[in-house]
């Protein structure tokens, strides 16, 4: 389903989706219309005349390969097990600029068995990392909450690394209606 703004970006659409490549909506118009600007409303309302010219200094955003590479950097060749980790993210967000996210891992958090680190990755932002957190038995509970930016409808992946050297993972799908971007100075 195309959840992007209807204005075509002028870039070749990817074969897999009809979505625009550009992770940041809005500020794509340049020239005389720049002062009126691409704003929230103009993104939402289809304009037949809106043949936007894309000025994209960077060509692509994170690919599934980049995500896989980022995960591999952390886990090496160790297997990823599903379970123990819970990702609490809203399934649909109005604005990708501040998406509340809570990650929790079932763990006794004892010296012998605790979560050493939690790594969060994303699929379609310009870069695949979200955050890394390092924990110890001093935390009592392996729960971390924060707010993240999501530039497109995508998967968020959480990987928990335990003191026993195991990697547990879960992912969540988030629909982002307005991508992480800003209205510009108006």
């Amino acid at each position, binding site marked *: 389903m195309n959840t992007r703004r209807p204005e075509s970006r002028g870039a070749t659409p990817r074969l897999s989706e009809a979505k625009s490549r550009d992770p940041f909506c809005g500020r794509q118009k340049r020239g005389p219309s720049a002062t009126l600007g691409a704003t929230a409303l103009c993104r939402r309302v289809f304009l037949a005349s809106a043949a936007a010219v894309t*000025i994209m200094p960077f060509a692509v955003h994170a690919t599934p390969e980049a995500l896989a590479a980022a995960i591999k950097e952390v886990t090496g060749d160790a297997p990823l097990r599903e379970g123990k980790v819970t990702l609490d993210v809203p399934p649909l967000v109005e604005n990708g*600029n501040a998406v509340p996210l809570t990650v929790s891992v079932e763990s006794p958090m004892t010296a012998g068995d605790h979560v050493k680190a939690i790594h969060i990755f994303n699929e379609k932002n310009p*870069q695949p990392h979200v955050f890394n957190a390092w924990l110890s038995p*001093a*935390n009592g*509970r392996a729960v*971390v909450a*924060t707010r993240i930016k999501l530039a497109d409808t995508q998967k968020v992946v959480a990987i928990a690394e335990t003191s026993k050297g195991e990697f547990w993972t879960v992912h969540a799908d988030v629909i982002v209606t307005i991508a992480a971007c800003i209205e510009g100075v108006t």
Partner: protein
Amino acid sequence: MANVLVNAPKTAKKGQVVEIKALIMHVMETGFRPGTNGRIIPRNIIEDFSATWNGREIFRMKMSPAIAANPFVSFSAVASESGIIAFRWTGDEGFAAEHQVNITVT
């Protein structure tokens, strides 16, 4: 002095797991966003956040441009002893901020 809002209990029972929340004002400019002149606004983010309890590290986080502006973090800690919980943020352009709270553990 950075604008920081920390929420941690003032008292706790020994062994109790407490929730600590920290909010700091920071633009967290991703480095991917074009400005109104069409040029990319340079990256300016907080990269490291850490917390210590009487000097011992209890939490550390590496932030990326994917963390929302005015970063908010919440984590847990076991109330071990009375003292000072100290927080430190560092990032681009030499950004550094510190804050501490007292806690009494009975």
